[in-house]
């Protein structure tokens, strides 16, 4: 059975792109979220194997969402997706419970590498 992914990003462009990369690698995209609040809700509801999380999102940022998700499920596997210039925040995200990060713009190989490392 293929492993499931929840994609969280407010930009449809990024959701499409990440979705394509992961789908081609055999993952099943079971949900998408456009805001931090949605990300938390959908995580609880869908229990995906993996979450990709954008940092900049409306209502609740990605870092707060990671905090909420790991509070609910300490084993949650969250991959942060950050843009250039946000490296400082990545540390904060890891402290909040994120397991790894990739920097936009994505190299598909870099994304898959991180995903496989995470799901081990």
């Amino acid at each position, binding site marked *: 059975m293929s492993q499931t992914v929840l994609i969280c990003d407010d930009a449809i462009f990024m959701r499409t792109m990440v979705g394509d990369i992961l789908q081609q690698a055999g993952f099943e995209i079971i949900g998408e979220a456009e805001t931090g609040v949605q990300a938390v809700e959908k995580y609880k509801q869908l229990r995906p194997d993996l979450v990709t999380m954008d940092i*900049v*999102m409306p209502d609740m940022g990605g870092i707060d969402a990671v905090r909420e998700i790991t509070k609910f499920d300490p084993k949650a596997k969250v991959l942060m997706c950050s843009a250039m210039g946000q490296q400082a925040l990545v540390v904060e995200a890891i402290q909040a419970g994120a397991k790894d990060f990739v920097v936009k713009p994505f190299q598909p190989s870099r994304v898959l590498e991180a995903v496989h490392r995470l799901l081990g």
Partner: protein
Amino acid sequence: MDLARYTALFLSDSRDHLQRCNELILAWERTPGAAAPVAELFRAFHSIKGSSAALSLEPVTAIAHAAEQLLSAVRQGSLVASVDVLNALFAAVDGLALAVDAVGRGELPEENQPLVELLTSLAPADSGRTAEMAVPERRLHPRPEGESVARLPVRQVRVDLERLDALVHDVGELVVARNRLATIADRDIGSELEQVSGRISALVGGLQSAVFRARMAPVDEVFDRFPRMVRDLGRDLGKEIRLEVQGAEIELDRSVLDALSEPLTHLLRNAADHGLETPVERAAAGKQREGTVRLRAERLRDEVTVVVSEDGRGIDRNAVRERAVARGLLEATAPLPDAAGLLRLLAHSGLTTRTEISTVSGRGVGIDAVLSRIRSLGGRMEIKTQAGRGTTFLLHLPITRAIVRALMVGVGGERYAIPFGLLAEATAHEAPEGEVTLRGESLPTADLRRVVGFPPAQEGVAAVGKRGKRPAIVIESGGRRTALIVDILLGQQDVVVQQLEQPAGLPPWVGGATILSDGAPALILDPAALF
């Protein structure tokens, strides 16, 4: 990577973001005290930055990144949102829009170093790090407690306009076939054929209106760029201008809507530039310093009226009359022009040069272009003006171009359709005269018989009425009136326009073709092309 697909996503996404940015910065500028929409602006620029970087569109990424840095500094409190900052953000939106358009044309956008430098120069040096949502998001309009945060998904699909056009065309053909079937079936009232035909008629009618509805788009899609444009005009002209938009949800056929953007831009520019006075002039006249421009759409039956009005100085009819007399357009003894006459004069090419008109009334620039565009859409235009109180233009538009209300006329046993929008009135032509005269005015005249290649009408031929009188239609186009003599007026009819590819050799006065309910084809005339 599926580049075309990502590029399409990038284009539609970025355009939405930029439009939203314009709205947000405008609102921010108007209400400086209100909570700043920094977070939402930041996200918009951030999103453009991310997707442009993924597509390796560096010039776009650079602008978006610099704008993001600027907003970051504002949010951290290290930079005050001054007029300069807001103007720089507007410039960023414009620069990005240009770059995005270039991408849309399949070009690589150019580096915009001056813009990036402008944005960078405003941001304090130490704000190098892009901070995230440290400050809770502040909103222009607080969201009520408990309301779902996610926007309701709009159930929509994007359809290429060409596909819809093809569908409209087929439905048009179907309507024609249905009409023919109904004509045949009606010979045998009560028969099975007549019953089936009636059922088909109803279904085709439903299909037709469904297809037309699918082509409708809210006028907001054209209106939404005007607040920003008027704001910039006000700034450039040193005037205080408020734009009020109403009825943005009213819908029009996509093709009518697209053709409306230019004339509206024209009218709004005129309103801001020539219609409204300077703040000093307004104050001296006992008016508010801030002038108001209103843009309103309203629907009445099968017509949408778009109104552009301002509370400026109004048009001085005396001055326009004098100018027209000097140009030989009016007799020296002519009375003051009424509203229709005024519009005709303003649209006259001799009165449209800006330097001349702006000393008179500050009006008329490009009115001829506006008028002919509206006419070509099958619409009508009106003007209302009052000295010292302002000027209003009303554009009456058909909600669709696929069906046109036409006057059917006949010559030599053939039928022709003339769109109603162009008709001023009908009169009679006295046979020996060369030109049709209307209330003493001699009009440039054409005989439809001659135009389409029939021999001239003769006494005693059925086509010519008693005492040699033939009907003549007065056509108003481009601010002038002309007359077209025909054999007979056959009444009005809604015709389904079949767009004709312009084959070489087709006379310019053929505006399209239609199939009448009895199955016979008829040409739609574009009378403006006859003179």
